[in-house]
């Protein structure tokens, strides 16, 4: 697949005026994914699981095929380590809830970082009120990175689990998650990686990485909304208690007792997002066809180009300057509130996001209330960055800035 022509694969860009720079929020969808949803509903729809009619058998096979595609894509050891959820947020809630229930008690510590998205903080916060555990935050440095040392500093003998982002959705910092995992394991601490921003932009290899949990948000990865993935080592899925209860996840139900189904059913209660799972197979195929090496190279060129251009632009200040950076360009302009920037850019068809991006702690630490964020997808081009820059200049003009 030719990357210079890639916008053609995304129907939304029939609107030639659109410069979509909000992919960290949610990515656009390629035609193959949209068409698969359409086909599935139009010609093949059935619930999966326990019906034995032909539609149901085919749907179940398609559903389980995606599980295998995901397994291979992230190089997990077993397909049973792939759990479909409604989103990354649910995946993290699932781990926090079940891990907390079984293993945490008063005085135990959970180690996060100051970079974390609310979705990788609020679920752990619940354990604070419920169980009296403590939450510690590894510090972010002035470049918007979290180093292995700053993690190490906050580990104590009470640290029971570490949860860190793979790639910051504000500063774009790529964390040294393999080293952090090694460090955690050297102290016998399990680790969750919030891979929402990592998965669409970086190569994944669960067996090499060796983390205990990894969470993915499919809608940020050229897939349908309403779908996420929890990767978890089999031993955890076996040892942890179930999360939501309902149809499909049980083995035997009696009036006084219930036994739970085997993996991965144990964690997939109720009717799942069948059509979305079936279609997500196409998202993976799409990425495989391009190849993650090409994705990474393409996006690196854009990031470098964008950073250079914005650095040269007077009064624009980039937020974070990490050595390893991906997919995200956050910035402020002295004298213009980010929401005003976003509104003015939108008038030119340049879609960015403004606010705290669900990272209030990071913003407080950096001493800013809000940032403007341009985030990249595979479909972006240098022309998009040029358009971003010239709209920023228009902003400055409206606000009488130099």
């Amino acid at each position, binding site marked *: 697949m030719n990357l210079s022509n890639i916008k053609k694969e995304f129907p939304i860009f029939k609107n030639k005026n659109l410069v979509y720079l909000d992919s960290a929020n949610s990515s656009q969808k390629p035609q193959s994914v949209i068409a698969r949803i359409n086909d599935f509903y139009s010609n093949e729809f059935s619930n999966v699981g326990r019906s034995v009619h032909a539609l149901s058998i085919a749907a179940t096979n398609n559903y389980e095929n995606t599980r295998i595609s995901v397994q291979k894509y992230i190089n997990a050891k077993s397909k049973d380590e792939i759990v479909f959820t409604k989103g990354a947020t649910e995946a993290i809630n699932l781990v926090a809830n079940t891990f907390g229930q079984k293993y945490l008690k008063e005085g135990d510590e959970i180690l996060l970082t100051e970079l974390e998205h609310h979705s990788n903080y609020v679920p752990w916060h619940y354990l604070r009120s419920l169980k009296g555990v403590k939450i510690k935050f590894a510090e972010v440095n002035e470049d918007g990175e979290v180093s292995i040392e700053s993690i190490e500093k906050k580990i104590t003998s009470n640290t029971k689990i570490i949860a860190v982002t793979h790639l910051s959705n504000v500063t774009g910092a790529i964390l040294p998650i393999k080293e952090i995992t090694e460090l955690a394991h050297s102290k016998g601490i399990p680790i969750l990686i919030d891979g929402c921003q990592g998965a669409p932009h970086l190569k994944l290899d669960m067996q090499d990485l060796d983390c205990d949990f990894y969470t993915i948000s499919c809608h940020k990865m050229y897939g349908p909304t309403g779908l996420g993935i929890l990767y978890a080592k089999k031993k955890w899925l076996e040892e942890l208690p179930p999360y939501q209860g309902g149809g499909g996840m049980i083995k035997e139900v009696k009036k006084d007792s219930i036994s739970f189904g085997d993996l991965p059913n144990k964690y997939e209660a109720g009717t799942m997002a069948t059509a979305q799972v079936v279609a997500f197979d196409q998202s993976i195929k799409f990425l495989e066809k391009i190849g993650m090496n090409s994705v990474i190279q393409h996006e690196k060129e854009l990031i470098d180009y964008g950073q250079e251009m914005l650095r040269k632009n007077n009064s624009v200040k980039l937020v974070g300057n990490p050595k390893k950076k991906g997919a995200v360009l956050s910035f402020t302009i002295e004298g213009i509130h980010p*929401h005003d920037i976003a*509104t003015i850019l939108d008038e030119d068809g340049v879609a960015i996001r403004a*606010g705290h991006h669900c990272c209030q702690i990071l913003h407080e630490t950096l001493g800013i209330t809000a940032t403007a964020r341009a985030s990249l997808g595979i479909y972006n081009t240098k022309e998009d960055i040029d358009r971003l820059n010239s709209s920023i200049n228009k902003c400055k003009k*409206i*606000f*009488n800035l130099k």
Partner: protein
Amino acid sequence: MNIKELYQEIILEHGKNPRNLRKTDNFNKDAKGYNPLCGDNVHIYLKLNEKKKVEDASFEGSGCAISMASASIMTDLVKGKEENEVKEIINDFLGMIKINPELKSKNLKDDERTKLMCLSGVKQYPMRVKCATLSWHTLISAIDNTQEEINTERLD
């Protein structure tokens, strides 16, 4: 619709140099407002005399140009007006910013009306209407002494 109608000079000027950005001494009414969308927050202070006339109005807070300008213009405008008049003006403003083409309040002088109409461009930017109305809703809360923090996500 041109973006310059939203960001008129007077808005930019009030946004940059907001009037009454301070805390009224001996205020007797106040209320806080918050806009989770922008992170904008505002704290309105009022000093009413025995006849329920606004002797002073001020605000603290931070936010986008629209919300700062709106609070600035609003606090300027209510000074010297009676509580009833203020309430009437608030309703008029909130009606205009959402649907009405014009301001109808008899309690507004011509130049006041003109100044307020500078905010009317917001109408075309639905996500930004809350920026313009935050301080006004908070003002109602202050007058009524509801003790409830205004949160724009609760408002339509």
